[in-house]
Every structure is written in C-alpha cells, then in structure tokens.
C-alpha cells in the first residue's frame, strides 16, 4: 500500500472469472503523513481510503471481467459500513463480487477483513468507459503487473 500514490492494494491473490470474484491483500503502512493529521496521537486509516481500497479491488475485478476493454470509474457508493478502526501496520484481506455487469456500468459488493473479522463493506457502482488514451492504459497494465494481475486467466475466462 502506497498512500501517497493512491495505491491502496498490494497484491491480487485470487481472481475467479467463473464466480466473478476477486481477493486482494494490503498492508497499511506504519508511517505516513496522513496519520499526522488523522489523528494526532491516535493514528487511524481513514475510512474513505478503506472505501477506495474496496473500489480498487472491485475495479480490478471489473477490468478482468471486461477483459481489459473498459476502465471502471467510481460512480456511486451504497450501504457503506465502517465497522471498526484500522490502525497503521494492520494487514487487510479484501474481496469483491460482481453483482451485475451492465452496458456502460457495473455494480460490485466488496468487503475488508482484518484477522478474519469483517471490518467494512459496501456496494459500489462504476461507470465503464473505453481507456481514454494509450498512456493511461499502459499505466494500468504496468500496475497490473505490480499487483500480479493474472493476465493469463483472461484468455481462458
């Protein structure tokens, strides 16, 4: 996890195109300027960043399901629940399931667990658009490699 670069997940650990599910993992850094303000003397991972982590997990699932033909952009959030605090250094297990792939949009259900305990969950809607330009797509392919996105599964899915 690199908060300053808005990279909220570390690795894709499982991608199941048949079940339309994904699992990722992330470790909250022990130090970040964000924790200096959130909060002084009581550092906590901001809830909005946990939601972004669920969105990024869901987003890679949508990219996989659409075979890298569409870029998902965060459009709406429903039923978001932040159930317990997340502190610096904690490990997160994230998962998402595709509820529906529509024409130009997709809806997922995502959650985060810490030590097996449900920590937050939400339903997320994305707009799906063609990649705006080659540079953007190339950056996403580069990030896919960093996250160990299983490109091979797209050919067989």
């Amino acid at each position, binding site marked *: 996890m690199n908060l300053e670069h808005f990279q909220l997940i570390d690795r894709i650990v499982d991608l199941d195109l048949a079940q339309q599910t994904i699992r990722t993992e992330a470790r909250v850094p022990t130090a970040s300027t964000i924790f200096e303000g959130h909060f002084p003397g009581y550092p906590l991972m901001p809830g909005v960043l946990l939601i972004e982590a669920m969105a990024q997990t869901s987003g890679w699932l949508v990219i996989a399901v659409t075979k890298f033909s569409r870029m998902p952009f965060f*459009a*709406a959030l429903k039923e978001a629940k932040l159930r317990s605090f997340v502190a610096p250094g904690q490990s997160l297990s994230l998962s998402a399931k595709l509820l*529906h*792939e*529509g*024409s*130009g*949009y997709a*809806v997922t259900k995502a959650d985060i667990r810490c030590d097996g305990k449900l920590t937050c969950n939400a339903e997320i*809607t994305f*707009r799906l658009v063609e990649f705006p330009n080659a540079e953007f797509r190339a950056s996403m392919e580069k990030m896919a490699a960093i996250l160990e996105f299983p490109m091979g599964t797209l050919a067989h899915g």
Partner: protein
Amino acid sequence: MPSTFDTVANIISETCDIPRDTIKPESHAINDLGIDSLDFLDIAFAIDKAFGIKMPLEQWTQEVNDGKATTEQYFQLNNLCTRIDELVAAKGA
C-alpha cells in the same frame, strides 16, 4: 402481473423519489422527470435485474451522440418500455 410500464415507473419512483402519479408513459426520463445519468445507472441496474436483460445503454448513447437516434426513442418511457419488451422477447427466443 404488472405491465412493463408499471414496473419501470415504480423503479423510477423508488430510485429517484419521484411521486409515482407524476410518471406517465409519455414522460421523458431526462427532460420531464429530470433524471441525471448517475441516477439512470441505478434505474438501469434495477430494470436489468427485474427483467433479466442487459439494456444496451452504450449503444443507445452512441446512436444519440451520432445523430442516428433521438433521446425520445430510448428515454421516453413508452418507447423505453417497448425496447425492454423487445429485449425480453429476444432473450426468450
């Protein structure tokens, strides 16, 4: 069994908090009911689920942007319901 229009009107009413009795077959989702594109995603999700279809919104939008169709053809509710019925029929064919 409710008509396609009743199902769609109920979805719009619940999703966008629009009084049900103001939603008519001749209502235009955008121009008359003021539904924006984000709210329409919620409506599309509910319609897709209710009818077991995938409305081709990207195609419709492209046709409107290219001047090959008018928004009335897809977003006036009686026309939208006709499109939904066609998609349901195609699914069962």
